C-alpha cells in the first residue's frame, strides 16, 4: 500500500470517527455551546466597512497604475507590421552598440584574467637549497658557470676549479701563472670554451680557454687600474659582453667579437653599467646600474647596439635564463620593533637589510624570493636590548644592523631549473645549489 493510500485510509477513519464523535450527545451539546460562543462574539462591522473601503480604494489605485503603462496602439495590419519593423530596428540598433561594448568588456576581462593568472606565484613551489662548496677563508667571487654536462666551473682562491653539480668531484682545473689570478669565468654556449678574466700587474685580461688544451687565447687587456667584470657569452657564441670598471668607479659595458680573427677586434661600447647578461635571442642585454639619487641598484634592459634603454626594476647582478627568466640579487629590509612605549609607539627598532636572490618573469609581474634570509637573530635582539638599556633606554632608536650573510652572483643552469648562488659572511663563503621555480 502506498503512503497516499495509507493516508487516505487514516483520513477516512478519522472522518468516520469524528462523525461518530460529533453524534455523541455530550459532544453535540459541547459543540452547540461552542457554536453559541462563536455566535456571541460580535464582528466589528464598523471596522469591516472602513477596511473594505480602504482596500477598494487601494486596489483601484493599483489598477490605475497598471493601466498607466505605455501601450502601443496597433489598429491595422499595416500598422502592426510597421510596429514590428520598428521594434526590429530598435533591437538592431541596440545590438549595434551592444556587441562592440561586450567585445571590449570581454577583452578587458580576458586581459585581467591573464594578468591575474600570472600574478600569484606557483603555490606548489617550495624553496630548496643545498650547500655545494664551502670556503672558510671567505675569498668570495666564485663566479660559477654550469655546463650542460652538469659540471660547475668556478674560481677558488685565484684558480679555476670544477665540480659536479651535486658538489662532488671537486678539483682544480687550472692554476694561474705566477703573479696572475683568475677572477671570473664564463662558459661558452657550445661548452667548448671558457672566457676568463685574469688579473696581473694591475691590469685585467680577457682570454679564452679551449677545453682541449686549456691554452689561454688572449682577447683584450685593460689599462692599468681598470678591471674587467662579468664576461657574458651571446647565445650564438659570437660575442662576449663585459663591463669595464675604471679606477674612478666608472662602469661601461662593452662587447667584443669572438671569431678567431687576427688581429683581435676592438671592443665596442654598448652603454653605461655593469654585469651584462644576454637575452635568449641575443637581441637585448640586461645590465646593472647604480642610482646615486636613490642609492639603489637598478636593472635596465638595452638593445645589443646600446639603443632603447628601458628600466626593468630594482636589483643587481642580473642573469637571464634561456627560459626568459631573470635572476637577480635584491635587498630586502627587515624592520622589527623590539620595545614599545606606554602609548604604543615604537622605542627600539632593529633595522637590517638582507640581500637575497630573486627570480622574476620578464614583465616583472611575478617575483619569487628563492633564498629568503632571516632577519635579526634572537641573540642580536638580546644584545640590542642590553645595549639600549645600558645607554639609558630613553628616546626612540632605530638600530641599523649589518646582515650576517648576503647572497650574490646567481648563475643559471643551462635548462633554467636551478641556480648556483654565492653566500658570503664575514667568516666564510659558500656556493649553493638553489632550486628555481614558482613563477607559473
Amino acid at each position: 500500500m502506498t503512503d497516499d493510500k495509507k493516508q487516505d485510509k487514516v483520513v477516512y477513519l478519522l472522518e468516520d470517527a469524528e462523525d461518530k464523535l460529533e453524534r455523541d450527545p455530550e459532544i453535540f451539546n459541547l459543540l452547540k455551546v461552542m457554536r453559541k460562543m462563536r455566535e456571541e462574539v460580535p464582528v466589528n462591522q464598523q471596522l469591516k466597512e472602513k477596511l473594505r473601503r480602504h482596500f477598494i480604494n487601494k486596489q483601484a489605485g493599483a489598477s490605475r497604475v497598471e493601466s498607466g503603462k505605455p501601450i502601443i496602439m496597433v489598429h491595422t495590419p499595416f500598422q502592426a507590421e510597421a510596429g514590428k519593423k520598428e521594434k526590429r530596428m530598435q533591437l538592431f540598433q541596440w545590438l549595434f552598440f551592444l556587441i562592440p561594448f561586450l567585445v571590449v568588456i570581454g577583452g578587458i576581462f580576458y586581459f585581467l584574467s591573464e594578468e591575474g593568472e600570472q600574478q600569484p606565484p606557483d603555490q606548489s613551489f617550495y624553496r630548496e637549497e643545498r650547500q655545494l662548496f664551502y670556503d672558510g677563508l671567505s675569498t668570495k667571487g666564485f663566479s660559477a658557470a654550469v655546463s650542460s654536462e652538469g659540471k660547475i666551473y668556478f674560481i677558488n682562491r685565484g684558480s679555476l676549479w670544477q665540480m659536479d653539480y651535486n658538489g662532488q668531484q671537486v678539483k682544480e682545473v687550472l692554476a694561474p701563472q705566477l703573479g696572475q689570478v683568475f677572477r671570473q669565468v664564463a662558459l661558452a654556449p657550445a661548452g667548448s670554451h671558457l672566457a676568463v678574466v685574469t688579473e696581473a700587474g694591475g691590469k685585467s685580461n680577457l682570454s679564452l680557454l679551449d677545453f682541449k688544451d686549456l691554452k689561454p687565447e688572449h682577447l683584450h687587456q685593460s689599462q692599468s687600474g681598470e678591471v674587467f667584470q662579468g664576461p657574458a657569452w651571446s647565445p650564438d657564441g659570437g660575442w662576449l659582453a663585459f663591463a669595464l670598471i675604471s679606477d674612478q668607479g666608472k662602469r661601461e659595458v662593452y662587447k667584443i667579437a669572438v671569431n678567431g680573427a687576427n688581429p683581435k677586434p676592438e671592443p665596442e661600447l654598448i652603454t653605461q653599467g655593469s654585469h651584462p647578461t644576454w637575452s635568449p635571442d641575443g637581441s637585448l642585454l640586461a645590465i646593472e646600474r647604480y642610482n646615486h639619487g636613490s642609492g639603489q641598484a637598478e636593472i635596465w634592459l638595452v638593445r645589443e647596439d646600446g639603443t632603447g634603454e628601458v628600466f626593468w626594476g630594482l636589483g643587481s647582478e642580473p642573469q637571464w635564463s634561456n627560459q626568459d627568466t631573470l635572476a637577480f640579487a635584491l635587498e630586502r629590509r627587515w624592520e622589527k620593533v623590539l620595545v614599545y612605549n606606554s602609548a604604543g609607539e615604537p622605542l627600539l627598532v632593529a633595522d637590517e637589510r638582507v640581500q637575497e636572490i630573486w627570480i622574476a618573469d620578464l614583465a616583472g609581474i611575478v617575483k619569487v624570493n628563492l633564498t629568503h634570509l632571516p632577519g635579526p637573530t634572537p641573540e642580536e635582539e638580546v644584545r640590542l636590548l642590553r645595549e639600549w638599556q645600558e645607554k639609558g633606554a630613553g628616546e626612540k632608536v632605530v638600530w641599523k644592523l649589518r646582515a650576517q650573510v648576503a647572497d650574490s652572483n646567481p648563475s643559471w643552469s643551462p635548462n633554467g631549473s636551478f641556480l648556483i648562488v654565492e653566500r658570503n659572511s664575514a667568516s666564510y663563503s659558500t656556493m649553493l645549489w638553489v632550486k628555481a621555480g614558482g613563477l607559473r
Partner: protein
Amino acid sequence: MESETSMATELEMEIASENKENQSFVAVYDCYFDQVNRYLRYRVKDTLDADDLTAQVFSKAFEHFDNCRNRERVGAWIFRIAHNTYVDFLRKRKEHLPLDDQYGQYDNRWIQSQTKQPEEQALAREEIAELRSCLEQLPQEQRDVLLLRYFGELQYRQIADILGKKTATVKTMGFRALQKLRSLWEKKKEGGWPG
C-alpha cells in the same frame, strides 16, 4: 460626497465583475473578515487589540495577495497570516497562550451587547465560562486546532496548511482534542454544571 459614493459604487461594480474571472482581494476580504475578526476577538483578551490585529492581517494579505498563487487555498492563507500575527502579538506582549481570568469580563461585554433577556445572558455566560475553562486545559496545539476548526470555521485541510502539518495529523489532533474536551466537560457537569 455624492460623486465619491458613486465612484466607490462604480469601483465595487468593476471589482464584482472582475470577481467572476479573477478573484479580487475585496471578495476574499468579504468572505473571511467575519471569521478572522471573530477568531482574533476570541483569542485576544482586548477587543481593540483584536481589531487592530484584524486590520494588520488584511493589510498584510492585501500587500502579498499577488504572491498567493493558490487561490483555492486563500482561506488557509488568510488564517495562516491571522494565526502568525496572533502568535507574534503574544510574543511581543509576553502573554501566555492559556486564556486568563479576564476573559469572563470580555464574555460579559459580548453578551451584554446582544439583545437578550438577563436570565439567558447569565446562562450563556456560565456555559461559555465553563467551556473556556475546559479549552484552557487543552494542550496548545489541540486548542489551536479546535479554535480554528470551530471558531475559524475552517476545514482540517486548511488547518493543516496553517499549522504546517499533515491533514491526518491535524485530524488526529482534533479528534483527541474533542475527546479530551468531552471528558473535561463531563467532569465539569459532575461538579455542578447547570446545563
